[in-house]
């Protein structure tokens, strides 16, 4: 994985949300923390091109988010906070197959890929179920399946456990730890990212600290006090 920010800056309605940032991300497990409004969410969305830099540039595995947005999004999947808002077709299997539609695979291959990814997350029996019948945790796993069925190199997750109850939170946490993909997680849940390789702390639109979990989390506590 090779994500690069080169003096990349994000603005919203005239205000700078992320000040010019230069860094390189290669670690397998990266956490992003910060207070609400610190810019961490915008930062995450700059990686997959949902937010484009007002200045500077962002590249993911060599692809520029402005010029090759589609390729960037092929490299990096994104999981959002609310489980309900990510499964968009009534039946789970159909939703997951949606990601493969652009590949125009024969129907049997699509079905196999869908079943394989459902099995990977232990929800093979939920394939024919309707989205609104499932719990938050099951939906987040389904969202993971829908995003990872295309086998992206990187997975970005924005507060993936925020809206889940304790049991579902544990379920999703365990799943995240077992992922082979490179994972970048934004989270208020410090327990989730405490074992990661590298943590980025954002504060007022700037990178306030960047390093191993122990020191960055300690710095975060100071800032939040």
């Amino acid at each position: 994985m090779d994500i690069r920010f080169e003096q990349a800056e994000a603005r919203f309605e005239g205000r700078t949300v992320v000040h010019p940032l230069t860094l390189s991300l290669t670690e397998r497990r990266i956490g992003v923390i910060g207070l609400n409004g610190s810019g961490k969410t915008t930062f995450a969305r700059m990686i997959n091109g949902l937010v484009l830099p007002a200045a500077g540039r962002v590249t993911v595995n060599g692809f520029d988010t402005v010029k090759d947005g589609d390729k960037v999004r092929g490299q990096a999947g994104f999981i959002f906070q609310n489980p309900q808002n990510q499964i968009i077709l009534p039946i789970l299997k159909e939703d997951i197959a949606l990601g493969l539609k652009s590949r125009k695979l024969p129907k049997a291959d699509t079905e196999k890929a869908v079943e394989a990814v459902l099995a990977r997350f232990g929800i093979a029996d939920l394939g024919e179920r309707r989205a609104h019948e499932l719990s938050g945790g099951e939906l987040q796993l389904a969202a993971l399946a829908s995003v990872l069925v295309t086998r992206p190199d990187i997975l970005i997750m924005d507060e993936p456990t925020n809206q889940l109850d304790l049991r579902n939170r544990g379920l999703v946490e365990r799943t995240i730890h077992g992922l082979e993909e490179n994972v970048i997680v934004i989270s208020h849940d410090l327990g989730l990212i405490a074992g990661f390789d590298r943590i980025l702390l954002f504060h007022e639109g700037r990178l306030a600290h960047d390093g191993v979990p122990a020191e960055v989390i300690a710095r975060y506590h100071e800032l939040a006090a």
Partner: protein
Amino acid sequence: MKTLYVEGDTFLHRLSPRPKLLGLAAVSLTLFLIHSPAVLSGAAILGGFVYASLRLGWRQSWLRLRPIVLTIAIVALFTLAFNGPHDALVAATRLTALAFFAAVVTATTSTGDFIDEITRLAMPLERLGVVKAADIGLSIGLVIRFVPEILSRYQAIRDAHRARGLRPKPLTLAVPLIILTLKNADEIAAAIDARGIRAQK
């Protein structure tokens, strides 16, 4: 969501949507050009026979056709009062025939087949830049996906009203329902774009 499609293996079931829709259009046009109650009655009876051949049973058929039968009856009575028996009979038989033929197409065509056909028909519009054909199936899927969520939200809002001793009124129910539902639009749209579902092929 329950559909009005009925499983079966009749000739009409096996026929693809396009000839059925074209046939229905042709039949409708013809029915509007005929003004003889005798011919129209024949058409209505023919329509009835075709509908009966689907073997839905009396109860199912009545449940499906009741609203339109009642509407036709009221309209026919109305026409009788203002225009006399001839016009009333023409209106009644024409509309009944139309209803039967339309109901037959609906009962023998699955929603999936309809959506595929609409997507195919939208392709020329896509080339003109008016609409993206795949968006139609996606939009329909989105609606069906979120109706149950909205219903749950509606129940929750109504229950919250009752718990506070307020009588639920259209305004106080509709406004929070709409705001809470539409607020999800940004995240849903971001999720769709992040998965590249609407990306240019």
